[in-house]
């Protein structure tokens, strides 16, 4: 198991490296720079500023300097929020983004698996039809629309929950964002779970378990759930990407202080350091979570471990 984990980490790190490299060169190839403005700086000042950010070096040198910095844990200064370093800005947004993302991930996965099982057990009866409808809405309706409608209904008309904003430690402010973020994710998982559960319930070993007199609950818990989970677990990796995309929107709709907002702002301002920093952060996050997913996968399916 440990060897498997090490191998996975070692094969994932180059991907993060390539992503950052590609981003670095795409950004530099773009027209415009962080210090273009309507009121140009005096040339001497501009030269000093560019020297401070290493922008006067040849492109390849800049790249080496940046990678060197990253390896030492230094993401460099932000080019649009002048007094902050990239790491400082990320430290402000990160706890919140992680909290939001992980809560949504855990809740959505749990709900998705449970509802998928329920739909499979009650196949072609009313709980199934109801769930299929909720799932279709989650898969098809874009999350910014769901978000706007929930915000309007629960936040403005009913006034049950705050419509947006963030007060540290307040769970009420998290309910709507997490609900929006989870819906699409849970829907996809539920659909997968329903399909694989129906397939599993038709297998011979489930029939054997039933015929030796096990109760339906026991059959599900001891025999059916583990193999039925395999396709779900293999979806969790790509699912994370969706979740991340969703969190950009959710942070925007509800005005939440996460990293997503910084990312979009930074891209618009050509804040090279900040864009690269957030990309790197997202990459590492996805790699770490994918690793956990893979380990769970290896635990569920021994075939994977020995390949």
């Amino acid at each position, binding site marked *: 198991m440990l060897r498997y984990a090490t191998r996975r980490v070692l094969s*994932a790190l180059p*991907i993060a490296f*390539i*992503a950052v490299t*590609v*981003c670095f060169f*795409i*950004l530099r*190839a*773009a*027209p415009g720079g962080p210090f273009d403005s309507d009121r140009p700086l005096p040339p001497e000042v501009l030269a000093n500023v560019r020297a401070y950010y290493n922008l006067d070096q040849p492109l390849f040198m800049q790249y080496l300097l940046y990678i060197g910095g990253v390896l030492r844990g230094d993401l460099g200064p932000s080019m649009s929020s002048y007094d902050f370093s990239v790491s400082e800005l990320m430290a402000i947004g990160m706890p919140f983004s992680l909290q939001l993302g992980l809560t949504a991930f855990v809740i959505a996965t749990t709900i998705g698996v449970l509802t998928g099982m329920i739909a499979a057990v009650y196949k072609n009866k009313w709980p199934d039809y109801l769930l299929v409808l909720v799932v*279709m809405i989650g*898969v*098809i*309706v*874009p999350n*910014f*629309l769901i*978000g*706007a*409608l929930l*915000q*309007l209904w629960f936040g*403005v008309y009913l006034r049950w929950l705050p419509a947006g904003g963030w007060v540290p430690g307040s769970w009420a402010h998290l309910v709507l964002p997490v609900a929006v973020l989870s819906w699409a994710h849970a829907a996809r998982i539920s659909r997968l779970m329903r399909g694989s559960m129906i397939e599993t319930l038709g297998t011979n070993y489930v029939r054997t378990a039933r015929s030796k007199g096990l109760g339906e609950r026991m059959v599900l818990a001891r025999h059916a759930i583990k193999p039925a989970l395999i396709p779900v677990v293999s979806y969790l*990796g*790509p699912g994370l*990407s969706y979740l*991340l*995309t969703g969190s*950009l*929107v959710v942070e*925007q*709709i509800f005005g939440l202080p996460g990293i997503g907002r910084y*990312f*979009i702002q930074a*891209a*618009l301002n*050509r804040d090279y350091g900040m*864009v690269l920093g*957030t*990309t790197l952060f*997202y*990459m590492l996050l*996805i*790699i770490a979570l*994918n690793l956990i997913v893979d380990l769970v996968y290896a635990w569920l399916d021994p075939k994977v471990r020995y390949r």
Partner: protein
Amino acid sequence: MAGLTQKDEVLTRYAEKLSTLKAPKGRSLTDDAIRRMLANKAAMVSLFVLAAIVLFAFVGPYFVPWGYSEVDWASIRKPPDFEAGHFFGTDHNGRDLLARTMFGTQMSLIVALVATTVSVVIGIAYGAIAGYFGGRVDAVMMRIVDMLYALPYILFVIILVVIFGRNPILLFVGIGAIEWLTMARIVRGQTLTLKEKEFVEAARAGGAKPWTIIFRHIVPNLTGPVVIYATLTIPEIIIVESFLSYLGLGIQEPQTSLGTLISTGAPVAEVTPWMLIYPGIILVSLLFCLTYVGDGLRDALDPKDR
């Protein structure tokens, strides 16, 4: 009829019947597919609604007295009003929302078509080449696809869009260039089985070059899965486009798309709910219809469930 036994009578009648019968008509695979498609109620209803939305977007503007960027100073931020001719109401600048919704739908549909075409072209070429050459070429090419899958591609779309400015054409191409991964995988899988078929061997024996075989013999046989997957890609691209527009990175004023309309409507939905609700309804029905038509096509054309 005297002198004939009953048995003769039956036989004669049978012979007459046989002579008037037409030869039984065979059912081709396409006939089967069309029959299955017609029997699928959800898909047929969706197809009609879809046609209605397309008409709404492309023909509708000729019947609306207002242009999509025309300002009616007399009615700014007014709810739907049939007497003034603003059936969907007006926005904060006094522009007719019906005209804007039509234009936005048109824009979303065009983006979807162009981007899907781009993704289909890249996906087919990439997948067919990887699948046909196989071996190391295949391993390297598909490894690249795996790596791209692992990337949070939306970050790259955002970076690309920011870089290339707000040019809609580049937006189309950018989205299409990112959505080709699954298509490439599907095409590669199909190519792997197709290249073992006799007609490919015959072409090779006839001295055809690999490129000719790929694009003249293999690609035309990929139509089925490609059509199915392309139909399912269209709603995804509409979502990506509206997502980018929602973040303010997509289509720019005074042009508009469904995403842009929703993003301007959402913050003011408390005061002017029609600005959120009408574009929202169109977007959701469009996405539902496209998904059901795609699913219907898959059920009709996919040989797996026969």
